């Protein structure tokens, strides 16, 4: 039986967390994502599933609570918006180093600094290139609808535990705040403590007589051991790059010119494609669903067929660097973006496509 609801993106994240068998949510209020914590507090998930919800004293505390919950093998998450996510980078780096699974939702707003509370995509570098110190990546999912806000919570937990790595859902203030129809997935029961011991033998759940004591840490004072860890992490990232790339091709079959955009920008590009095709322009869209791992291979293939690419991002041009790396110098790749919470219109991006790519030299 399908359960359909009209929800805000942030509410969909919260409801999906309860349904995904999440054990604990730890967060701190910040616009435009506070509805996640508000929804969870109102919903009393402790009564529904036993899930714990705690308002922490800061984003620093929140992410370290996630570290603690992850360290004992629990399904735990936090959410915030850009300035709060900056504060969390310490904990995310420690989680990557200690190989802990966890879900971090970033409902991005304009920056730098305190910036604005309106939507932005300017946290792409931070999310996909590491963010904190050291050589690491988080898997980054980019929902473009309220439906995906829900679906990516479940997917995010699956990936986090499959690879023992933090996963970021990179949304934005518009996807978080807007209301759309969402089909909710059926609830998954929370893992029992016995299941956790069996599934996650690395988790520090209390030392029984039959095994050695476990240490959750990202510290190696011996450089050879730290190099070993780094090699293991890099091997893990190569596996992720080989197996977890997700993207959507929209009108790509006969496209001569391609938009590359994710999240809210991809929705705008879809409308621009429609407007362009009415004028006889063969436009398509490649929408990365995973920002890391990035869909480089399909872009390389598409660049054999299309004549030019326009990246639309609500930033000064961050993803465009990965697009250029993917297609090398084969075809023209340009960027167009707006900043500070301004969302470009479909007409605006179509005009740029026509001037910069189709008519550009």
């Amino acid at each position, binding site marked *: 039986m399908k359960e359909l609801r009209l929800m805000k993106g942030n509410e969909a994240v919260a409801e999906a967390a309860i349904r995904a068998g999440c*054990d*604990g949510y*730890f967060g701190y209020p910040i616009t435009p994502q506070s509805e996640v914590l508000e929804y969870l507090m109102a919903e009393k998930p402790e009564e529904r599933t036993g899930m*714990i919800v*705690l308002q*922490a*004293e*800061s984003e*620093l*505390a*929140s992410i*370290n*609570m*996630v*570290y*603690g*919950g992850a*360290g*004992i093998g*629990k399904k*735990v998450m936090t959410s915030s918006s850009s300035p709060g996510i900056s504060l969390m980078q*310490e*904990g995310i780096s*420690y989680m990557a180093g*200690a190989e802990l699974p966890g879900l971090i939702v970033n409902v991005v707003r304009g920056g730098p600094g305190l910036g604005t509370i309106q939507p932005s995509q300017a946290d792409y570098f931070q999310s996909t290139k590491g963010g904190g110190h050291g050589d690491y990546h988080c898997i980054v999912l980019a929902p473009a609808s309220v439906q995906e806000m829900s679906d990516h919570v479940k997917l995010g937990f699956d990936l986090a535990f499959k690879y023992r790595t933090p996963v970021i859902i990179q949304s934005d203030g518009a996807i978080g705040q807007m209301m759309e129809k969402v089909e909710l997935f059926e609830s998954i029961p929370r893992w029992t*403590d016995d299941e956790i011991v069996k599934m996650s033998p690395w988790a*520090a*759940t*209390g*030392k*029984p*007589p039959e095994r050695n*004591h*476990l*240490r*959750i*840490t*990202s*510290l190696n*004072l011996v450089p050879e051991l730290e190099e070993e860890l780094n090699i293991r992490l890099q091997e893990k990232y190569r596996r992720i790059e080989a197996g977890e790339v997700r993207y959507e091709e929209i009108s790509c079959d006969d496209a001569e010119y391609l938009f590359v955009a994710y999240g809210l920008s991809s929705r705008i590009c879809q409308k621009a494609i429609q407007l362009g095709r009415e004028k006889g322009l063969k436009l398509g869209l490649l929408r990365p669903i995973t920002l890391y791992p990035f869909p480089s291979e399909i872009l390389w293939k598409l660049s054999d067929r299309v004549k030019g690419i326009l990246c639309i991002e609500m930033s000064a041009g961050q993803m465009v660097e990965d697009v250029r790396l993917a297609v090398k110098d084969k075809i023209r790749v340009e960027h167009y973006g707006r900043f500070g919470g301004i969302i470009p219109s479909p007409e605006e991006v179509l005009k740029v496509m026509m001037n910069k790519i189709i008519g550009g030299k």
Partner: protein
Amino acid sequence: MITKPDIIKPENLVYKRTDLMVDTTLSYCPGCGHGTVHRIIMEILEEMDIQQETIGISPVGCSVLAYDFLNIDMLGAAHGRAPAIATAVKRLMPHKFVFTYQGDGDLAAIGTAETIHACNRGENITIIFINNGIYGMTGGQMAPTTLPGMKSSTSPYGRDVQTMGNPLKITELVAQLPGTCYVTRQSVHTPVNVRRTKKAIRKAFDLQKQNKGLSFVEVVSNCNSGWKMTPVKANKWMEENMFPFYPLGDIKLPQE
């Protein structure tokens, strides 16, 4: 005539190194109090038979490697964040015993917010706080608890409270918060003090078992390397200078 086999019998055993200490060399300087406090905690876990039920959180500082020495499952925290980590562990596994082990820089400088809020929420955990008034691991810099006038590598002419601020009596501070149920200050520099500290930590774990809220045990300790003294002189200096500023004894007792 009593022979050696007559003496070595289980019923004659008066002291045994607890198996809950890993059989390895500690990374601490000779004369340091950390090893003693480690042993006390492990003895208590053994006596309460809760090795499997206990999860410890180690800090950043000299005791960063505590998880190598304590034969229990442990999580190594980012600097100062142990109380936040302990909060999540305890809330997600309320039947476990959860404690943090932190130094003064970790607990009273970089982790002040995490410390105060875990205490104020009344998390049902135990915080063990080793205060030696200095950053030991990084080479003897000024700590939040460094005494006025006390020399360190970053206060080479002595702590000038006018420009460097005052030492923070965080233990008295957390005792004011409704979430703490038991707050005490002890030391481990003499056998009698070791016994008192052991009693205090045992009490803290007993209170956690009874879901009474947060217990906070400060152990005023020495740092002969950082203070640049012999172990014996460091203990004497501690008695003469640290104890007047950080007086030993219970600060807050659990309400019946």
